[in-house]
């Protein structure tokens, strides 16, 4: 079943003082099925964050259409977009984006609180998620007291707590050491097994090789994509490396 549909999306940043316009996205088209695990790769400045922000309704495309289960994201008001973001999407960012004024538990519960759930319901949802992410002991701590990997797992728990249709992750392993990054990817793998759709932007070939499909963005378009199919992770890793080399040397598709 088709979950997310991106059609001919274009994004042009106009600088404030009439300077040069930057075309971050030229013509992006792709779609994501329910339960998929997709990684987006591309050079620095190729527009990955821009694309993710547009999908997250944090930014509007200059042209094109985005639909989540048929809902046109370009046509909802700022206020509705906030509710939509909270209820349909889960986020994981490179720099965690935890509120330093809230404990780990409260950070995770924030979206539920905003949506007006009862405290009982909150706790019953929190428990299994915290257990699966191994942060049950950390719930009463504050962000400054925990490690980067723990922060990222907290952020994932917050992303999952609303049972979102899709998890959007921007460089989730970017600020983590290799061990914490591995743990995180395992978690992503597990939740994807349970049926969670994940869209992850990454620089890391290692991270991308965990995904079931990898999209390559270059010059503002989807330049190439590969499916993992029945391949092993090592084979996938090799394939990604090949594509990246080809892109870097300006080779054929």
């Amino acid at each position, binding site marked *: 079943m088709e979950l997310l549909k991106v059609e001919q999306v274009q994004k042009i940043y106009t600088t404030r003082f009439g300077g040069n316009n930057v075309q971050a996205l030229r013509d992006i088209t792709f779609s994501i099925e329910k339960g998929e695990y997709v990684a987006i790769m591309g050079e620095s400045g190729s527009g990955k964050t821009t694309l993710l922000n547009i999908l*997250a309704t*944090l930014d509007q495309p200059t042209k094109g259409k985005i639909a989540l289960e048929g809902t046109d994201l370009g046509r909802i008001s*700022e*206020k509705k*977009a*906030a*509710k939509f*973001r*909270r*209820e349909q999407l889960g*986020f994981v*960012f490179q720099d965690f*984006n*935890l*509120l*330093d*004024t*809230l*404990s780990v538990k*409260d950070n995770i*519960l*924030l*979206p539920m*609180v*905003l949506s*007006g759930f009862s*405290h009982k319901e*909150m706790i019953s949802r929190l428990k299994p998620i915290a257990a699966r992410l191994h942060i049950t002991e950390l719930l009463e701590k*504050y*962000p*400054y007291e925990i490690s980067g990997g723990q922060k990222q797992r907290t952020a994932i728990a*917050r992303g999952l707590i609303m049972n979102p249709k899709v998890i959007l992750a921007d460089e989730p392993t970017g600020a983590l050491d290799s061990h914490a990054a591995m743990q995180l990817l395992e978690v992503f793998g597990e939740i994807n097994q349970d049926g969670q759709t994940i869209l992850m932007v990454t620089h890391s070939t290692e991270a991308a090789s965990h995904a079931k499909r990898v999209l390559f963005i270059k010059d503002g378009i989807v330049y190439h994509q590969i499916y993992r199919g029945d391949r092993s992770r090592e084979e996938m890793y090799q394939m990604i490396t090949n594509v990246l080399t080809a892109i870097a040397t300006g080779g054929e598709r």
Partner: protein
Amino acid sequence: MKELYRNLAKQNLIKNKRIYVPYILAQVLMVALFYNLLFLEGNPNISLLPGGETIQQMLAYGALLMSLFVMIFLFYVNSFLMKQRKKEFGLYRVLGMEYRHLKRVVFYETCLANVTAFAAGIVAGILFSGLLYMILLKMLGVRSALVFGISGGGIILSFFLFGFLFLLVLLYNLRQLRRLKLSELLQAQAQGEREPKAKKGLMVFGIVNLAIGYLIALFVRNIFASLPWFFVAAVFVVIGTYALFTAGSIIFLKKIKANKGQYYTPRYFTAVSGLLYRMKQNAAGLAGICVLSTMILVTCCVSVSVYIGQQHAIRTLFPADIMVTVSGSTNPEQDLDYIKEQSEKAADQIGISVEDVKLGELSDVDKNIQLLEGTQNVEITLSGEEKEKYECSKLLELNQDDSSHTYALAHFACKQSPSDGTASIKATYGGFLFLGIFLGTMFMSATVLMMYYKQISEGYEDRKRYVIMKKVGMSADEVKESIQTQVLLVFFLPLAMASVHILVALKIMIKICGILSIGWGTVLLSTIGTVLVFGAIYIGVYRQTAKAYYAIVDQQ
């Protein structure tokens, strides 16, 4: 090398202009005000005025009070600036600067900022001294021309005060630099993010202090003892306010937080957690704003009441234009006739007329002094200008010798000529108002500066949160609303508390003003007026500083 440090220091100040410009401006204002206080205090023209010495004495007290306040306040602000810049210093260390290098940069920075402020302050002070001189004389009821003068003593004394302050600040800054370890320097800002503890003991301590202060203010009986008690009460209230703001707010918020059903709702969740954090960071600053606001209000209320009540006081203390005290009189009727005759003669000479001459009542003061048998007050009312009345009284005084010859038993004493009397009253009362406005200006600028810094420091913190909350699913309006509620609440808490303080202080203020023959109605009215005006100014300042806040928060 020296050049390099100096340039770096200059650039640092420019880079941090958002926090340094207000600091320097405030210091300029303080220097200018202080210089002027000294200038007027030592001005020979003023000491020649009727009642001039009284007012100069008041100004001297004012200068003492101000120097104390300036020291504490500017030192506090400086420490705030250093705290804000810890991270920056940490970065310099990481980039390879050693302590001794950094020390020199900070040395030059401190010199540059303080010397500039001092020089500008003195220049501004000199430029405005003529104007202030005129305003003071006007309040004393004397007309005068604009004069221009420089007080060498004023400059030297200001130099000593601010020089001493400068040394303190410099030592503090260098000590701060040395005491911090590199890791701490870099984490300085993350330190504040610990969850605040609920200090029950401190809250009880605060309540007890506040209660003692209030009780003293409310139940002091003796009028003449009320002035020193006022200060004792003030000290208790200040301590109580600090303790209550720091501990009380957090305990209150934690209580809400403990109630899960209430806390985990959109209305309370972000606001309470945000406020907890905010109060921890700003409780002391808020208590400071509250205390300063109270000081402004008390100063202005008393000064305004005194100034407004002046006419009434003059009338009760000096019911007539001239009062003649006759002692040892055996025949009051005859004395009265004689005085009438004498005063008419004197009035004729000046060219005015006598309206009424009558026996007056003895005042409380007169009754208290053991007087000779047969003492009488004779009240003379004249028509004409103040100046002419004054001359008339002088003439009458001259004729006194004459009269004692004619009436061997009666002694005429022109107790107090009207202008002398009203002039000294006007000097005291006008001096009160002048000093009140002077100190009020100082306290006000301090308040504005603290509000501004509070907004700025919070702005930087809130910006990050603002962005995160938006990403996690709050709409821009929701975020703004949540932040606005917090900011407003935090801002008006000190004003509300200050109003309560004033309400309690009202009684003691009425008593103090009573000494000066000012009715409670006047005090009440001028208090209401002052609170309203102050409230308006406070809101205005809030709006202006909020602009600075939103400019930071909305930055991309």
